[in-house]
């Protein structure tokens, strides 16, 4: 059977050979694990969150294992957009797997500038806008928690690039559907969700927070039911494609998101547990649609909603 049965379109001009995407921050800049994994078979790769200037990130410890998942406070350590363009993108241009650049800024203007720098760069197939960053101008509040701010960021990016724009939503909000609708109206081609949930741990022997940054983001199996319900909610109220993410560890998890209405899925923490997971999920999806006699994975999108 042809492989095109897994093909999905996540945005105008962004068609993926399969719906399995490596989530930002868990796949580096693409080829770090080339010895272990044929990463070119992924649907897409989203690189580490990128800022205008290189960032050093947060103090150690940055990763703490907790029941059902992990907490991280990496703090967007990255090489900065200039190095990304000169050192990483040229290799990406030779790969058949599309690379999407995840961007983060402290101001609306920074998001716009990041997008215009990436516009037209060979090797970059799209932008994922991480709006879970603090808005320094608005007193550190996250862009992602307010529909108006989220829309401002989205339109700043939209105006600065012709690349497909995916806006990545934060779950740390009261009404994720309102944010999703706001960014859709502001010109997003797709939304991805969810980013990590705010969390922390305490080392009782040291009487100190486990993470050097005190708080961080929870990811992994523990967040899957939350992510799934948010995808369900958002897919019911926007027309643009929804990319599901959060605790996906196997093909069945991925199918749940697809059946909730996701066009594609992002796999994050599972890559740290086992770098083969994303490819295993692709194989699992292929087996599932064959076994169920389904021609195209898109036929399953939202199947559970009927």
């Amino acid at each position, binding site marked *: 059977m042809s492989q095109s049965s897994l093909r999905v379109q996540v945005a105008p001009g962004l068609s993926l050979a399969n719906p399995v995407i490596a989530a930002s*921050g*868990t*796949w*580096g800049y693409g080829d*770090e*694990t080339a*010895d*272990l994994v044929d990463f070119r078979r992924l649907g897409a790769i989203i690189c*580490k969150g990128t800022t205008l200037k290189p960032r*050093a*990130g947060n*103090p*150690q*410890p*940055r*990763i*703490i*294992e907790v029941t*059902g*998942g*992990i907490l*991280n406070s*990496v703090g967007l*350590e*990255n090489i900065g957009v200039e190095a990304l363009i000169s050192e990483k993108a040229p290799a990406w241009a030779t790969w058949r797997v599309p690379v999407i650049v995840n961007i983060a800024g402290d101001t609306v203007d920074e998001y716009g500038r990041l997008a215009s720098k990436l516009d037209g760069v060979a090797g970059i197939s799209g932008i994922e806008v991480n709006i879970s960053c603090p808005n320094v101008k608005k007193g550190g509040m996250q862009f992602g928690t307010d529909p108006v701010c989220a829309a401002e960021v989205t339109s700043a990016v939209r105006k600065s690039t012709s690349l497909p724009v995916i806006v990545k939503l934060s779950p740390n909000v009261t009404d994720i559907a309102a944010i999703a609708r706001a960014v859709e109206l502001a010109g997003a081609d797709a939304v991805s969700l969810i980013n990590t949930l705010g969390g922390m741990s305490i080392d*009782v*022997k*040291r*009487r100190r927070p486990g993470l*050097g940054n005190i708080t961080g983001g929870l990811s*992994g*199996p523990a967040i899957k039911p939350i992510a799934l319900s948010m995808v369900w909610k958002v897919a019911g109220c926007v027309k643009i494609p929804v990319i599901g993410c959060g605790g996906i560890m196997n093909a069945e998890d991925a199918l749940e998101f697809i059946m909730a209405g996701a066009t594609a899925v992002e796999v994050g*923490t599972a*890559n*740290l*547990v*086992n*770098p*083969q997971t994303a490819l295993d999920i692709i194989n699992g999806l292929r087996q599932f649609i064959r076994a169920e006699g389904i021609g195209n994975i898109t036929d399953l999108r939202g199947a559970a909603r009927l």
Partner: protein
Amino acid sequence: MKQLKAKVLSNDELLSYPGATYFLMRVHAPEIAAVSKPGQFCMLNCGPDVPLRRPLSIHRVHPRGDVFFLYSVRNPDAPDTSRITIKENGLISTSGKGTTWLSKVAPGSQLNIIGPLGNGFSIDNKSDNLLLAAGGIGIAPLMFLAERAVSLGSGVTLIAGARCKEGLYPDSLLPPGINIIRVVESVENNTRYIRGKVTDVIPLHLAGVKQIFACGPQAMLEAISNHVGNKAVTKPVQASLEVRMGCGLGTCYGCSIKTRQGMQRVCKDGPVFNIKDIIWQEVRI
């Protein structure tokens, strides 16, 4: 870097003292054994209940294609040695999950392993005399280094430190041809043991030494680091560091630390660093 299912050939208790038990595990992993360098490590899957793999140094390799790991499992009933003591009554400690699981793996089972990872130690061509400083379980990567150095014709002095003599690596497993100094915190001085700390002894064994390699508790590495450059330690020191890891593969930036050479990933750019480059406040587990 390879990922494989390695067959466990043996997995036995090697020694035990109040505080911890050390296990020696031998797995068949020819693709890893063939390309490993001293100071490199592997990420081991530690069962379905622990999400993250655990980093363990390559302790030794056998030409038949086997890799050895030496790992410490904290005894659950051990007296609490941390700064703040609390009664264990009613407190169920969950730390040590991964290594405890590992210690129960039966020979014949398969373990999912990724390795070799990281940079490893580098022995200079002209280093005819090496000093190895091991604190506790820090001996794990240094044994492979000692074996390699001896095979390259270098002289090796190993200072092995332990809290009590039951914690010392058995003589029968030491590579032939090395000079061993046993340093124990709680023992009377005699011909076999020196009472004290590894760092007390280093300055006494520097004659003719070209390079120093260290692995052990952070306090020990910091103490060595404070002596580097002054009279006590005049030779270059390479130290193997420990921080919490996510992937171990260089992709997640969970292990990055600020160093005098900029940001460095312990799993990829390390775990072995020139001790002068380390800013100790940045290294925390």
